[in-house]
């Protein structure tokens, strides 16, 4: 299952030493809702020793969204060694996300 990212666990998740893909979403965003199952599939398929897939609700976690200047959802951010490396704005296919992850592992 994708990990729920909150202000409380943010540092711990992002600085875990693993590559982290964060899906910024909200319940009113249809493209986000439709991407939900795909993100869960991704979370099950990746090597959990190396990669964490997380979801961040922009409504409840506005501080995180603001920190990374999220102004459009869905947006995926990829973190490596605690730093944002890449972002994907809008709906994407699972394979495209897997390819991105592979590039940064």
């Amino acid at each position: 299952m994708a990990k729920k990212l909150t202000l409380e666990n943010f540092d711990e998740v992002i600085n875990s030493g693993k590559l982290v893909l964060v899906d910024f979403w909200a319940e009113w965003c249809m493209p986000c809702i439709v991407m939900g199952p795909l993100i869960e599939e991704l979370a099950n398929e990746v090597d959990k020793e190396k990669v964490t897939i997380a979801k961040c609700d922009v409504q409840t976690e506005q501080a995180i969204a603001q920190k990374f200047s999220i102004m459009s959802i869905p947006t995926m951010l990829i973190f490596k060694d605690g730093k944002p490396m890449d972002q994907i704005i809008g709906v994407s296919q699972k394979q495209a996300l897997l390819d991105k992850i592979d590039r940064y592992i």
Partner: protein
Amino acid sequence: MMNEQKTHEKYDVIIIGGGPAGLTAGIYSSRAGFKTCIIESGVIGGEAASTDLIENYPGFPDGTSGLKLTENMEKQAKKFGTEIIYDKVIKIEKTNQLQKGKYKILVTNSGKIQTKAVIVAVGTKPKLLNIPGEKKYKGRGVSYCATCDGFFYKDKKIAVIGCGNSGIQEGLFLLRFVKKIEFVEFLPKPTAEKVLLDKIKEYENVNFHLNSALQSINGDGKSATGITINDNTTLKVEEIEISGVFIYVGLNPNTEFLEGLVQRDKNGYIIIDKNQNTNVSGIFAAGDATIDTVKQIATAIGSGARAAINAGHYTENTN
């Protein structure tokens, strides 16, 4: 050694695109007993799913959200056995297999799928303005989806480009969040329906720049901070500070993959006859990507049903 891509299952009817036209075609086709699948490259529900309030779809006197409406259509299609595959069709193979009586082959990102009939219901995507700053600030001030991104502009001043039905409708939604909207319209008059224009006129925190072209979207490198517009008559150039720009300047059909096979008009809309036939036997088209000039959910539904019924007849005569 065989290194051909895997050819998946065979279907009677494949529908490319899962908006209202495609979902309706799915309902009709699977209910009639045909092995049916929808291939969707983005989100089920299409453009309609991200429409906040739909007031003119019959059967909903209080209006309905596009999300609820299309979710129900999806449920209904699945109930009768329509399968949904998330993938992108790259092309329909142009071989002698396209002769009547043979299977057609769809090439997708992940392989090949065979089907007797195809219904193309791929819809449209927002037209880009191709002006400086539009690409650079996409997702960082430039948006094409008010329901997704309106939340990020609470108490901010924004611009809405285009005063057609979409621009005004989405503007009305955005007024729940924003402090002020600067509307920009290239034509001398807004083209939206009167009912929408009457509603927007009730607001004091809207401003209209008619007969004006958007020249650029300006920013500080991180996000959009303003727009430059140009009055078509006086040629006066004006810079306006805003935090966000929502662009609704029309649509383009997603039909590039049909190049060289299916006949389209000069804007890319698929040419169909009254039975939703394209120029290729067994390939049908429905919804917003066709030359039908009325782009409404109600008309998409009708064309989806007609395409499915005629695809069914075609399939029955194909063995």
